[in-house]
C-alpha cells in the first residue's frame, strides 16, 4: 500500500513539525526566563557579541557596498529612460533601508553567525559538555544559550544599519562619482522621500525581529541536535535553510503590516 505509506509519512512529518515548533516556543520562553542572570554577567554577552557581531562586520559591509553599487547601476539604467535619474538616491535609499538592508543582512547573518552557533552548541552537546554543566548545577540555558541569544538580538539591527549605510555609499559611488548623476538632487530627493519613523525605524524593527528569529532558530537547532557528527551537520544545514525561509516569509508579513497603502 504505497499510498497509505505516503500519507503516513506526510502525517508524521506534519506532527513532527508542530512538535518542534512547540519545543522551540518552550525553549524561547526558557531563554527569556534565564536571561536575567546573563545580563548580570554581561561579559558573557560581550564575548558573544564579538564572535557574532564583530566577526560578521566585514562580510556585511562588503556585501552592502556591492548591493548598493548594483542598485545604483540598475536603477540608473531604468530611471534614465524616463529622464528621472535624479530619483536614483530615493530608489537606492528606500530599497536598502526598507527591504534589502534588513533582509540581506539577516540572510548573511544566518549563514555566517547562525550556522556557527548551531555547530558550536551541537558539538558541545555531542561532547557532553552540556550534560557536564547540568551535573555541576550550572543551567546550560543561562550559561550558553541566553548570552548568545542576546548577542544576536543586539547585533542584528546594528549590522543591518551598517549594511544600509554601506549600500547607500555604494550607490552614491556608482551613481554620482562614476556615472555623474547630480550630487545635490541625489541627496536632497533622498532626504525628502525617506521618512525617519516610517522607513528607517520600521527597517530597524524588521531587523530586530529577524535577529530574534534567526538566533532562536540557530540556538534551538543546536540544542536539539542529535549528539552525533551527522546530527550536528544536519542541524547546521537546517539552521540556514529554516532561518532563510523564515526571514523571507516574515519579511513579507512585516512589509504588509508596515508599508500598506500610503
Amino acid at each position: 500500500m504505497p499510498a497509505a505509506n505516503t500519507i503516513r509519512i506526510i502525517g508524521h512529518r506534519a506532527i513532527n513539525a508542530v512538535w518542534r515548533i512547540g519545543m522551540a516556543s518552550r525553549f524561547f520562553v526558557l531563554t527569556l526566563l534565564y536571561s536575567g542572570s546573563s545580563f548580570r554577567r554581561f561579559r558573557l554577552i560581550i564575548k558573544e557579541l564579538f564572535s557574532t557581531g564583530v566577526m560578521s562586520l566585514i562580510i556585511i559591509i562588503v556585501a552592502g557596498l556591492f548591493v548598493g553599487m548594483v542598485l545604483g547601476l540598475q536603477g540608473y539604467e531604468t530611471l534614465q529612460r524616463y529622464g528621472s535619474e535624479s530619483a536614483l538616491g530615493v530608489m537606492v535609499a528606500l530599497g536598502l533601508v526598507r527591504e534589502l538592508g534588513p533582509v540581506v543582512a539577516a540572510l548573511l547573518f544566518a549563514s555566517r553567525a547562525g550556522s556557527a552557533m548551531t555547530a558550536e552548541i551541537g558539538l558541545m552537546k555531542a561532547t557532553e559538555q552540556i550534560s557536564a554543566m547540568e551535573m555541576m548545577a550550572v543551567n546550560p540555558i543561562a550559561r550558553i544559550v541566553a548570552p548568545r541569544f542576546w548577542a544576536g538580538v543586539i547585533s542584528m539591527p546594528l549590522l543591518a544599519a551598517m549594511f544600509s549605510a554601506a549600500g547607500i555609499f555604494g550607490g552614491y559611488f556608482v551613481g554620482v562619482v562614476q556615472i555623474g548623476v547630480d550630487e545635490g538632487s541625489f541627496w536632497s530627493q533622498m532626504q525628502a522621500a525617506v521618512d525617519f519613523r516610517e522607513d528607517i525605524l520600521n527597517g530597524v524593527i524588521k531587523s530586530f525581529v529577524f535577529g530574534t528569529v534567526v538566533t532562536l532558530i540557530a540556538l534551538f537547532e543546536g540544542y536539539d541536535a542529535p549528539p552525533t557528527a551527522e546530527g550536528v551537520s544536519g542541524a547546521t544545514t537546517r539552521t540556514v535553510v529554516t532561518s532563510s525561509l523564515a526571514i523571507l516569509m516574515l519579511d513579507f508579513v512585516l512589509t504588509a503590516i508596515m508599508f500598506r497603502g500610503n
Partner: protein
Amino acid sequence: MERTTLDLWVGIFVVGGIAALVMLAMKVGNLGTYNMSDTYQVNAYFTNIGGLKPKASIKSAGVLVGRVTDITLDTGRYEAKVVMSLDRRYQFPRDTFANILTSGLLGEQYIGLMPGGDSEMLKSGETIKKTQSAAVLEDLIGKFIYNKVDEPAK
C-alpha cells in the same frame, strides 16, 4: 574588571552600528533636514484632491512651508477636508489661495499657497476659503474632446 582587546572590538562594532543609524537618520532620512517643531493647523476644502496624500508638501513661492497632516471626506458637504500643518515662522493672509499643483507632468502633488492681500493673518484652526482642486488629466482631455465635438463643422 580588566580591559581586553575583545572589548575594544565590541566597542568599535557598537559605535559603528550606532554611527550608521545616526547617518541614516540625518543624511538619508528627513530628521536632520526639515524639523517642524512649531506648527499651526489650517483646514481647506477641495472638491477633488486628485492624488494628494498625507505628508505631501505645502509650498509657497516654491519654499516648503508645511506638510499635509490629514485628509478626510467631509460628509456634510461631500468635499475633501485637508488639514495642513504650517511652520509657525510663516504667516499667511486670510484670503490666501490654496491650489493643488503637480511637480512636473507626472510628479507628486503638493499644495501651493498664494498669499492674498488681507491684513489679517490665518490663525490656527481656521479654514482657507479660496481653493482650487487638482487638475485631473482625464477631465482635461474629456473637456478638450467635448469642445471639439461642439464646434460647428467648417
